[in-house]
């Protein structure tokens, strides 16, 4: 279906090609997963399939890309629209119409399909993706998961033979992600659509893939193979695979179910070993950094937070979890005084954060927003660091030194927009940390982060907790929460439904349990590293 024949792509102004001599054959009806570091050329590979690269972005393409026999060099994206459907990373950015039904019909209108065909396909697609109840809703009023499904539906109505998705689940909570993946699975099985998808969260998608393509970047050749071949020795792997490798299971399981069936002996081995308690040693004391008491926040008729009472102390890493729209972001922004409480109180150091202004605020609470790029406005990294020192009233060079610790590879002269997603996050983190706020809040820090950057972030957060910072992170990433959090708070419809040590909260919920916990239940293990430590102890 898709043939890359000796394809190299060079962007204008770049000296090195992004992709070098790619040879790749994707047969019809396969679900292909493209993985690789941020900036390795994954997105370029995806966008080359419908000709956006180079027709839209510029640059030179050598070699040939054939999609169902059509050459992308002579067919611009609009002429391939009936063949390839592309779902962009942020679905909202690609919407043209204003209600769900019109958005679904837009592509077909461009193709000039007959009205009765359009009507039939819209109805079919509404059913296929479970969107019937939403058909007349304005797109702006949809949740993130619903938007993603509408975006998939809107390209499906043109009946493309190939569907290309760029990180379809990165902004979604675990439940919504499962819905989207189930819909994709159905397309592959029932309609024989070829799906090519890039995704960082391997633990969510690897079990659905027929083939994995690794884009290593830096001009290295890309590798492709079946999931079990590729996972056998891939440097990045979901926890289920890592556990399988650690325990030496053959064949290597890719799903929790397969792993569970193989895990009997390991469970016996681990019985009697308690997983270590998660306490950040040394720094923990009971000094409350922020206290909320019966906090209620509303936006017009919508109650975003309801009677939230909680205390965050030094040395804690709290994971704030819950569905999209459960009130996580609202709680964080109320803690820095961006939102007005309708009832109840927030106090940090005995003060209402709304009353704290300017530099004093950055010295007491720091928030890294969902899109860290929001914080950046200078045209170079160095300039950003200087203005951050100035804002926080600290010695010149403080931010730069912090950045050098967090992301040593970032150069002074780079424009912040040219940094990778992960580097931008670390730069924003350095800016926030420059003022040494005792309380650090992060909103969805791992969205779009690859595994190495995530590992670095985990290390940084642990070190900060040891030095006495209190950290709250709102996240959908159950593996991250299992890895780093000492405490988990679950919000639903603005209310706290669970609050306790990570083990207790996470194990009690099928939605928030990490893969290792699902495999080894009823033993309470959360991460591969815990199991590894216990096994070493057992053997040694």
């Amino acid at each position, binding site marked *: 279906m898709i043939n890359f024949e000796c394809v190299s792509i060079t962007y204008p102004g770049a000296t090195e090609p992004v992709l070098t001599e790619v040879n790749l054959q994707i047969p019809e009806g396969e679900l292909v997963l493209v993985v690789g570091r941020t900036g390795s050329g994954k997105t370029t590979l995806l966008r080359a399939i419908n000709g956006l690269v180079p027709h839209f972005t510029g640059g030179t393409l050598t070699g040939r890309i054939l999609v169902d026999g059509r050459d992308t060099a002579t067919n611009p994206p609009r002429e391939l629209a009936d063949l390839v459907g592309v779902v962009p990373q942020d679905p909202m950015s690609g919407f043209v119409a204003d209600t769900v039904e019109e958005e679904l019909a837009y592509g077909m209108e461009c193709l*000039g399909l007959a009205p009765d065909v359009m009507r039939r396909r819209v109805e079919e697609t509404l059913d296929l993706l479970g969107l019937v109840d939403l058909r007349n809703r304005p797109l702006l009023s949809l949740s993130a998961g619903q938007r993603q499904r509408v975006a998939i539906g809107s390209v499906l109505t043109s009946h493309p033979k190939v569907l290309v998705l760029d990180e379809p689940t990165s902004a979604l909570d675990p439940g919504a992600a499962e819905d989207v993946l189930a819909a994709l699975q159905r397309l592959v099985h029932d309609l024989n659509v070829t799906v090519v998808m890039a995704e960082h969260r391997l633990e969510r998608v690897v079990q659905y893939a027929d083939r994995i393509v690794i884009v290593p970047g830096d001009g290295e050749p890309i590798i492709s193979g079946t999931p079990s071949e590729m996972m056998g020795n891939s440097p990045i792997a979901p926890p289920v695979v890592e556990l399988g490798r650690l325990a030496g299971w053959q064949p290597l399981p890719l799903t929790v179910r397969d792993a569970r069936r193989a895990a009997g002996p390991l469970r016996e081995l681990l019985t009697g070993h308690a997983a270590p308690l998660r306490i950040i040693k040394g720094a923990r004391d009971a000094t409350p950094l922020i206290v909320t008491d019966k906090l209620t926040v509303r936006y017009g008729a919508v109650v975003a937070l309801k009677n939230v009472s909680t205390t965050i102390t030094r040395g804690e890493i709290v994971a704030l979890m819950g569905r999209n729209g459960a009130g996580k972001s609202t709680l964080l922004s109320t803690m820095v005084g961006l939102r007005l409480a309708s009832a109840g109180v927030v106090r940090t150091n005995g003060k209402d954060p709304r009353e704290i202004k300017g530099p004093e605020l950055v010295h007491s609470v720091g928030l890294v927003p969902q899109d860290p790029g929001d914080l950046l406005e200078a045209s170079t990294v160095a300039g950003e660091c200087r203005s951050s020192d100035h804002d926080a009233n600290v010695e010149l060079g403080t931010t730069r030194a912090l950045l050098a610790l967090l992301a040593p590879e970032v150069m002074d002269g780079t424009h912040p927009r040219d940094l990778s997603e992960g580097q931008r996050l670390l730069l924003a983190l350095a800016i926030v940390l420059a003022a040494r706020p005792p309380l650090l809040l992060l909103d969805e820090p791992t969205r779009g982060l690859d595994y190495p950057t995530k590992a670095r972030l985990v290390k940084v957060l642990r070190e900060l907790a040891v030095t006495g910072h209190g950290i709250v992170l709102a996240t959908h990433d159950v593996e991250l929460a299992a890895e780093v959090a000492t405490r988990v708070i679950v919000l639903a419809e603005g209310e706290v439904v669970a609050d306790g040590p990570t083990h207790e909260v996470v194990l009690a919920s099928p939605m928030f349990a990490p893969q290792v916990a699902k495999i080894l239940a009823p033993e309470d293990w959360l991460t591969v590293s815990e199991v590894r430590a216990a096994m070493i102890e057992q053997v040694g």
Partner: protein
Amino acid sequence: MTGSLFTLPRWLHPAAWWVWALGLAAAASRTTNPLLLSLIIAVAALVVSARKPDAPWGRSFIFFLRLGVAVIVIRVGVQLIFGAAFGTTVLLQLPGVTFPSWLAGVRLGGDITFESVLLAFYDGLRLATILICVGAANSLASPSRLLKSVPAALYEFGVSVVVAMTFTPQLVADVDRVRTARRLRGRPTKGVRAIAGAAMPVFEGALEKSVTLAAAMDSRGYGRRGEISAARRRMNSLLLLTGLVAACIGTYALIAAGSPAALGLPMLLVGVSVCITSITWSARTAVRTRYRPDPWALPENLVAGAGVLVALSFLGANWVAMPGLDTPSNPPTWPALPLLPLLGLLIATTPALTAPTLPRTIIGKLPRIEVPA
């Protein structure tokens, strides 16, 4: 009243709403009677509250009401400071500046009379009413549904207009985000420097978004040309452009006194017919089709008809110089209520009943509005 008398719940053709609203606006432009103007606003508000969809664009009416108030305040304010005073009822005596003789028409400060303030108020109210009528159309008819009725040749132009319109709320959200970010960095969020600092990231964000949107539209087949050749396409655009220019020259010559008669009407006619040829030509070759186009049926005729009638009633009253359309402000008199325009306004309220009710899913459930973080 349950449901509508005329059809099942559905969307009314947006053009019908626009005809109705422009009819009201045309009526407003013919009068300075504050009673009639207030009644026009009341009619617009009544119909909007009866048939407004619960969608983002549906909330714009309030914005236009506020805009109207602002217009009146500004108009009266300008009169207070710069306007020439007339009449005898002095409200307030301010120190005035006397300009040299070559600036005779200009005034600053001085006496403020009730009559001049009243005149300014009437004037402002008229402009505000016209704006509010446009606002009513804006909140009743979705911009992209209106686009669907645009001729195929103008479609691409229409898309850019709609995209520009949807960017406005996006821009507001962006400004909000940037202000948030400034607070997070401990910077002032108010004042000139804050605005200057926020402008750059907001514009960068908007630019980036439009590029993403363009890529998405391109990959979904926007601008597909099917079999038409590039030469033919260029020919078509050239024709349309020539026609438009000719029509503009013709209109100008018609209005401006002293231009040669041959340039006026004939030029306009030639221009319009060239435009129509070009549009029908490209409509024949365009590949686009329309999904569920809004029908034009009895309710549309009734709504648009109500708009035409209200405009006619005011124009007619104006034509026969019916007393009461203009309220003299010097000396101030209590405004009268002429019968014909009143009758027209009564007809203008009928869309509140004759327009079909909206599909249930929109008005039945309150959509969850995502709040920007």
